[in-house]
């Protein structure tokens, strides 16, 4: 990977999140995550619902609930996001260093105010613009960058279509000119045309080479369209981290779970991965996927180390290596 050789924008090392539940139960939502995202690059974090993807995003923004404990390191420039206090997160990180593109723009936008007023408020809070005309101009520039039509700025969120609301939310995320964009399920519930449109626009904001993009999604088609690299999460762990072209094309994914996930797509075999994901509060000692895996052996009773981006004792081997 040539991109990752330069210094990454975000560098996550050994990130773990535990939820302490009443009765002393511990939920292992994220365990030992390692990954980098470089400027001009898009990393897609994919996996079934409930695998810990959104918890990971919350941890990066310091938005975990009070009963959560985060360990490890997530470096954004010089700052370790996991060790930063609320004051630092609020004043320098959120919006300024990390822009969040939310899951549901309709719920993210304030319903009683116009898009212009929300953009201007964000411009006022995040940038040096103070003059009324300067704020107005900056807000319009932000709308333009997100391809939000400036003649619609006077509208309220309920007057916008799903696609325009998404652009408005993206415009808000871009105001602070943050080096890292974090998109948490940006395409849930949108129809296919709108999904393609939304991910293409997100991609455009990365292609200028100044920003890094971390997309969290369960929509594999969207991930294929936008990502340079793919991280597959299962039961709180990143089980495969690889190049998106190799993952979706040839030679394909190497972890049996990733392969199963792709085979579930309607344009492939359309067969589900058998069984259901394990409970995060009650994970087995060995490989968490073993009960659902068709390649399971005795070795799987021990947790597999991550070798070459894959955490599996019996990964699929690319054809040319096997020969």
């Amino acid at each position, binding site marked *: 990977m040539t991109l990752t050789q330069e210094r990454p924008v975000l560098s996550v090392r050994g990130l773990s999140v535990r939820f302490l539940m009443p009765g002393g139960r511990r939920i292992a939502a994220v365990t030992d995550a390692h990954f980098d995202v470089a400027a001009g690059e898009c990393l897609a974090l994919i*996996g*079934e*619902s*409930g695998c810990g993807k959104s918890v990971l995003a919350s941890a990066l923004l310091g938005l975990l609930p009070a009963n959560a404990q985060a360990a490890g390191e997530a470096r954004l420039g010089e700052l370790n996001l996991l060790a930063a206090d609320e004051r630092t997160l609020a004043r320098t990180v959120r919006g300024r260093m990390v822009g969040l593109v939310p899951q549901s723009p309709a719920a993210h936008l304030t319903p009683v105010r116009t898009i212009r007023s929300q953009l201007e408020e964000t411009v006022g809070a995040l940038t040096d613009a103070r003059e009324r005309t300067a704020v107005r101009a900056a807000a319009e520039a932000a709308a333009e960058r997100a391809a939000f039509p400036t003649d619609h700025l006077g509208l309220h969120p309920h007057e916008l*279509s*799903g696609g325009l609301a998404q652009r408005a939310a993206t415009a808000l995320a871009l105001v602070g000119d943050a080096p890292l964009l974090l998109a948490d399920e940006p395409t*849930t*519930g*949108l*129809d*296919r*045309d*709108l999904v393609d449109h939304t991910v293409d626009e997100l991609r455009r904001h990365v292609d200028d080479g100044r920003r890094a993009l971390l997309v969290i999604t*369960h929509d*594999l088609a969207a991930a294929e369209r936008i990502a340079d690299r793919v991280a597959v999460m299962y039961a709180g762990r990143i089980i495969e981290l690889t190049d998106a072209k190799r993952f979706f094309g040839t030679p394909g994914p190497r972890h049996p779970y990733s392969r*199963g*996930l*792709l085979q*579930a*797509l*309607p*344009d492939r075999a*359309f*067969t*589900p*991965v058998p*069984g*259901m994901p394990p409970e995060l509060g009650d994970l087995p000692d060995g490989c968490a996927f073993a009960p659902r895996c068709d390649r399971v052996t005795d070795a799987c009773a021990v947790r597999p180390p991550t070798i070459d981006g894959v955490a599996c004792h019996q990964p699929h081997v690319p054809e040319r290596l096997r020969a």
Partner: protein
Amino acid sequence: MLELHDITAGYDSRTPVVRNVTLTVAPGEAVGLLGPSGCGKSTLARVTALLHRPDSGTLLLDGEPVRRWRHRAPRAHRTVLGVVFQQPRLAADPRLRLTDLIAEPLRATGRRDEIPHSVGELAAAVGLTPDLLDRRPHEVSDGQLQRACLARALVLRPRWLICDEMTAMLDASTTAALVAAVENYRAASGAGLLAVGHDQLLLDRWCDRTLHWDDLAVGAKTKPDQPTR
């Protein structure tokens, strides 16, 4: 046959969202209805599921015209239709354990004696494990709750199944599992299916034929801001 003739429906009679739609589903047939968000396809699904009274047009259930909708619909009509909605959270009573959620239609129709047998069988068919059945909706994932909602729709063994964006919120594996559960039920029972959605790949793979919303309204005027095809 499930027949919709010249249905016009909406929430304001001056601006109906469904105009002059005609659609039939043969017994055992799977019909996909494809349209972008906001086109009115869910309203049509609600009309078909007896949950929304159309402004005009007729709905025939196995040759019998439907005259009453919602709570006025006769039980004989309500029980031959199974419905699965897009958002399981909004379609599940948060107070009910999954086992009671699935059994509710049997209780409501006085068939309590079938509960032990049917619930166990259906839970297995949709891939719910026994420990999940004792939980309430907030203790399970969206995918698990949607599995329970599908089991609930199947528990009266309906002749017609209506799935309104059943998998729009779900990941690929859960989608494939739920579609497989629907198809197993249809293979065993010969039920017909109307699947409403916006994912062409999925509907083409799932259904015998896929109809595009724009082609449905025969001779109807489309909205002025949309060019006719």
